[in-house]
């Protein structure tokens, strides 16, 4: 078939690249390279323009980018809209704070505990939530998120509503390396890039295919012999664990932990980041987190009613921007979804 | 008064009708017969605009009403007695009848008033205060027919007139259909029992795999007994 003939066919009928069987087109890889390279250079830029605070802000943005990335596994690839994902961020953060208050400051130990705690929480709440579908799933995950929130609020031993302040950041194998803003920044960037690459691999794996197939047509998956539940639960645990790692970095970046990290509003913001960035693209939610937090800062400078402006922008994006930022970028560069 | 030309219909890309040709003259009774899954109900739905045809035309008194919304079709004088009756369960029998009543155009009193319907179906009069779902299947079918009659249609279309009903009730309904025809309405009826239908039907149209496979008068049908075996039986 000639190129012009191919161009005349509806997008649907254009052949998917057979050999590579790619899920992510070259556009997405390019976007990822641009974003991660940009982040890698950021401390240098900050130095050049004499604004070290930029690094601190960027670290915070990357925390949410990592959390949004993990949520995309659920929303974008698994069609599991979790409205309680912030709970895992909180679990990670509290693991750091609670262990530190008992003298355990090593970040590796804290991360292992954070992941273990988050995985357990995800396993139990996921096992219950995944017995439901659609709106009910959203409500039940919301409920579990709130449960975690109120649990920490009531735990006055660990600050309750006021939260806990960390005296200093976690140690890394005995050293105080992470007390340096730039060191923490790069540590998180490495984790973020690894998570992105890992999830990209995961999506193309056997497991990833089952998750994607279940999102597409659960009845069909059952009819060929897959019990969706166990795969969905595994994805739920993986996503929770990754978000907990983000929480570990959040505690270190802010040197403060409070139950607010787990609130439903935070969970909602994560969903917004994923949707705005473009569900099911992995790099989209990263961009979404960046965009959301920058916009938040920027609009806040204008007025204290910045949330109104953000809301309007969101509505416009949802109504007119199919596929979020990733979709927009895709259309601008002339490529469709591979 | 009804003319269907080269009608094609599909549910998404599941194609059901491949060019149906059909005509019902004023006052005529025509049966639409054929096995299940052949496209009879789809034909009715396409005529009534419940399913928008993908090709072909539906002409009522010469006006092209293809794919028009159902209320338009009804306004042009067609009345539907749908498959499964679809009685309003939260209304009484009487309320079901009057809810969609309509006189003939021009303000003239239509042939079918509440009293006339009750005369045709005395059982409905007995049960007129029962809720729609508190009557038997046969009574529901009568109610569905009565409801259609109350709109004073010039053509009554029945999709499965007697399915699932006891033999005696079926006889009653066939007798009523004959009476309705006597009163001047045209009829297009989907049903299984060709013999019973032949008592009042003028013509028969056999649908097989989305096409008209045979068409003829009752006399033609009697003269070609293999039609029944070939198209209706297993």
């Amino acid at each position: 078939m000639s190129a012009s003939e191919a161009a005349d066919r509806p997008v649907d009928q254009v052949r998917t690249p057979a050999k590579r069987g790619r899920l992510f087109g070259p556009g997405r890889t390019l976007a990822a390279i641009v974003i991660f390279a940009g982040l890698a250079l950021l401390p240098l830029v900050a130095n050049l323009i004499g604004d070290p605070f930029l690094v601190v802000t960027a670290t915070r943005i990357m925390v949410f980018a990592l959390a949004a990335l993990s949520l995309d596994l659920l929303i974008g690839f698994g069609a599991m809209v979790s409205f309680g994902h912030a709970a895992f961020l909180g679990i990670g953060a509290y693991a750091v704070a609670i262990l530190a208050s008992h003298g355990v400051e090593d970040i590796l130990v804290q991360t292992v505990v954070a992941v273990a705690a988050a995985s357990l929480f995800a396993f139990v709440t996921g096992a219950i939530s995944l017995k439901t579908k659609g709106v009910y799933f959203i409500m039940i995950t919301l409920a579990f998120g709130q449960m975690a929130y109120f649990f920490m609020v009531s735990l006055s031993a660990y600050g309750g509503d006021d939260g806990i302040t960390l005296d200093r950041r976690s140690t890394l194998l005995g050293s105080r390396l992470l007390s340096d803003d730039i060191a923490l920044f790069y540590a998180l960037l490495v984790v973020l890039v690894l998570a992105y690459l890992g999830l990209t691999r995961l999506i193309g794996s056997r497991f990833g295919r089952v998750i994607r197939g279940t999102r597409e047509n659960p009845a069909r998956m059952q009819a060929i012999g897959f019990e969706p539940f166990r795969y969905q639960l595994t994805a739920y645990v993986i996503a929770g664990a990754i978000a907990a790692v983000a929480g570990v970095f959040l505690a270190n970046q802010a040197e403060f932990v409070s139950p607010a990290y787990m609130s439903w509003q935070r969970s909602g913001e994560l969903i917004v980041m994923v949707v705005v960035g473009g569900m099911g693209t992995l790099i989209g939610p990263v961009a979404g987190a960046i965009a959301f937090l920058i916009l938040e800062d920027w609009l806040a400078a204008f007025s204290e009613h910045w949330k109104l402006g953000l809301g309007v922008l969101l509505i416009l994006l949802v109504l007119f921007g199919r596929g979020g930022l990733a979709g927009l970028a895709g259309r601008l560069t002339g490529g469709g979804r591979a | 008064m009804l003319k269907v030309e080269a009608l094609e219909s599909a549910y998404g890309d599941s194609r059901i009708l491949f060019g149906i040709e059909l005509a019902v003259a004023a006052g005529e009774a025509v049966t639409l017969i054929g096995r299940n899954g052949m496209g009879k109900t789809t034909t009715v739905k396409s005529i009534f605009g419940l399913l928008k045809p993908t090709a072909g035309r539906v002409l009522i008194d010469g006006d092209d009403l293809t794919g028009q919304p159902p209320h338009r079709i009804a306004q042009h004088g067609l009345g539907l007695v749908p498959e499964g009756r679809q009685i309003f369960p939260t209304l009484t029998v009487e309320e079901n009848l009057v809810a969609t009543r309509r006189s003939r155009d021009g303000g003239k009193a239509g042939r079918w008033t509440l009293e006339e319907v009750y005369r045709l179906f005395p059982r409905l009069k007995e049960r007129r205060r029962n809720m729609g779902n508190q009557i038997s299947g046969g009574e529901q079918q009568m109610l569905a027919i009565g409801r259609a009659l109350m709109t004073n249609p010039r053509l009554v279309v029945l999709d499965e007139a007697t399915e699932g009903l006891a033999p005696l009730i079926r006889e009653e309904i066939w007798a009523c259909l004959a009476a309705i025809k006597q009163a001047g309405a045209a009829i297009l009826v989907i049903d299984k029992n060709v013999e019973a239908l032949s008592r009042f039907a003028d013509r028969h149209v056999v649908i097989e795999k989305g096409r008209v496979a045979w068409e003829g008068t009752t006399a033609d049908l009697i003269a070609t007994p293999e039609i029944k075996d070939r198209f209706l039986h297993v």
Partner: protein
Amino acid sequence: MSTPLLSIHDLRKSFGALKVTDGVTLDVPAGELHAVIGPNGAGKTTLIHQLSGNLASDSGTIHFDREKVSGLTMPERVKRGMARSFQITSILSGFTVLENAAMAVQARSGSSFRFFGRAGAERRLNEEAMSALDRVGLADRADRRASSLSHGEKRQLEMAIALATGAKLLLLDEPLAGTGHEESAALVALIAALKETHTIVLIEHDMEAVFQLADRVSVLVYGRVIATGSPEAVRSDPQVRAAYLGDETEAA
């Protein structure tokens, strides 16, 4: 006398007061193509749902390959060799044709809790998937998005997926639904070819197809089997005649 591959005994299912399956008993020997026909509302699809595991019966048993399967979930039955196709096409539209079949192969080829290897590159999965596609005649469509297939091709894909599960018994629910004349003929030829290697339970309205393909036919009316036998025997059965032609007088 060898045990039949599929054995249904006194199967019952009601929805409220409505008896949709009213004591169905049926045996299908290995290698047979058994057609289930009946007028509207007879409960044919509900029967297939109970056989495949989509719907739990109220009572009665289903035995497959000498094992009681009535209590098993659908994926468990698929693993044992019972696969179904759907009356309303149910495929993975966003995946390629090859991937659709490969998923079915993957389901029976070891664990899917593998997180890092690229499933799309697994040779064995793709080869077996291709051979299923080949059998139904979709090999040249392997790389296309499933949503871009024509309706008839999608029906073929439904069958390819069932084949790719490696099933011994195929439950085909109106495979010819919505197809035109040519597509229909192609599918009938395909099913005829599949008869040689599979046992098939076929629900269909298209009598020509049923008579071409079926070894035996069961007629289901209001949830009960009123006749079982060769197509010709069923055709001449007076009760079947009554059911189809509505001749009340002929009903015994």
